[in-house]
């Protein structure tokens, strides 16, 4: 990962988020409050606007900009969670870590903030699968899709979906899906 790839990643991620905004909201309807599409759309619109305006010149500057915009603009639980992820990634980048380790630190920060474990039907499930695959150099689009899909049969233990208990079973977790988009576009940016 580098600054140009990183900016491209955010552009692609933003495109996906805006295109799939309604679907994200739809996923957030049976098990949430129908705002994940709006939340991510608002947050990512600010991220790309900030990139245009502030023109970050290093990967670290970019990660910082992503962090602050997601923290203050998303509005839902996904705000502090993605915000924590990118904040952790920024710190690991400062420390000179490799990309796999940087992503892993992002995951650790999500878990520190949200206390979700594997199988709690959250974005964490996707991050865990992706981090492991990146460590082994095995990340593929299929693997991402499988990790997202795997949240479907689970019962939610964290976040708003946990309020509906058993009724959360049978639906894909919206945050898992948006994390899926994040990693699909990361793969694409890396490939370009």
């Amino acid at each position: 990962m580098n600054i140009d790839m990183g900016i491209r990643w955010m552009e692609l991620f933003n495109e996906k988020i805006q295109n799939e905004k309604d679907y994200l909201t739809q996923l957030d309807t049976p098990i949430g409050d129908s705002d994940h599409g709006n939340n991510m759309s608002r947050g990512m619109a600010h991220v790309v606007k900030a990139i245009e305006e502030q023109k970050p010149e290093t990967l670290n500057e970019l990660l910082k900009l992503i962090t602050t915009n997601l923290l203050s603009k998303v509005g839902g639980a996904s705000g502090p969670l993605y915000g924590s992820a990118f904040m952790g990634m920024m710190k690991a980048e400062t420390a000179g870590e490799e990309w796999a380790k940087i992503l892993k630190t992002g995951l650790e920060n999500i878990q520190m903030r949200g206390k979700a474990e594997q199988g709690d039907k959250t974005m964490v499930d996707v991050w865990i699968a992706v981090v492991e695959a990146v460590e082994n150099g095995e990340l593929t689009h299929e693997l991402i899709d499988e990790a997202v899909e795997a949240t479907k049969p689970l019962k939610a233990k964290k976040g708003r979906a946990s309020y509906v208990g058993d009724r959360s079973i049978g639906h894909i977790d919206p945050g898992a899906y948006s994390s899926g988009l994040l990693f699909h576009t990361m793969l694409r940016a890396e490939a370009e």
Partner: protein
Amino acid sequence: MEKTGIIIVSHVYEIAEGIHRLIKEVAADVDVQVVGGVDIKEIGTSFDTTLAAINNSSAKNLLAFYDLGSAKMNLEMAMEMSDKTVKIYDVPVVEGSYTAAALLQAGVNQENIEEQLEEMHNVK
């Protein structure tokens, strides 16, 4: 099955309106009636606005939530005067009514909703 709705009685107009907005996000199809304050400005609750809210609901069966004790007294009087079934829950007004609404929207029955609310009990 009888249609089940929610009624919330708060001492403050804004709290009632705010809870209504919060709940509607997760329970668009549930009939939620709120009463807040004596009126838009005065803090308090009253019997007749509470009774009116109960009667105003399209549901025959109501789960009731309140913030402070005097709201509960008005709820009790109002439910005695109404021919609807109203059950008052001594749980946190925001968190309890949110949970009940989310579960009602998901099609969960009253018994199972009460199990969930039971865990929140003992705060009032």
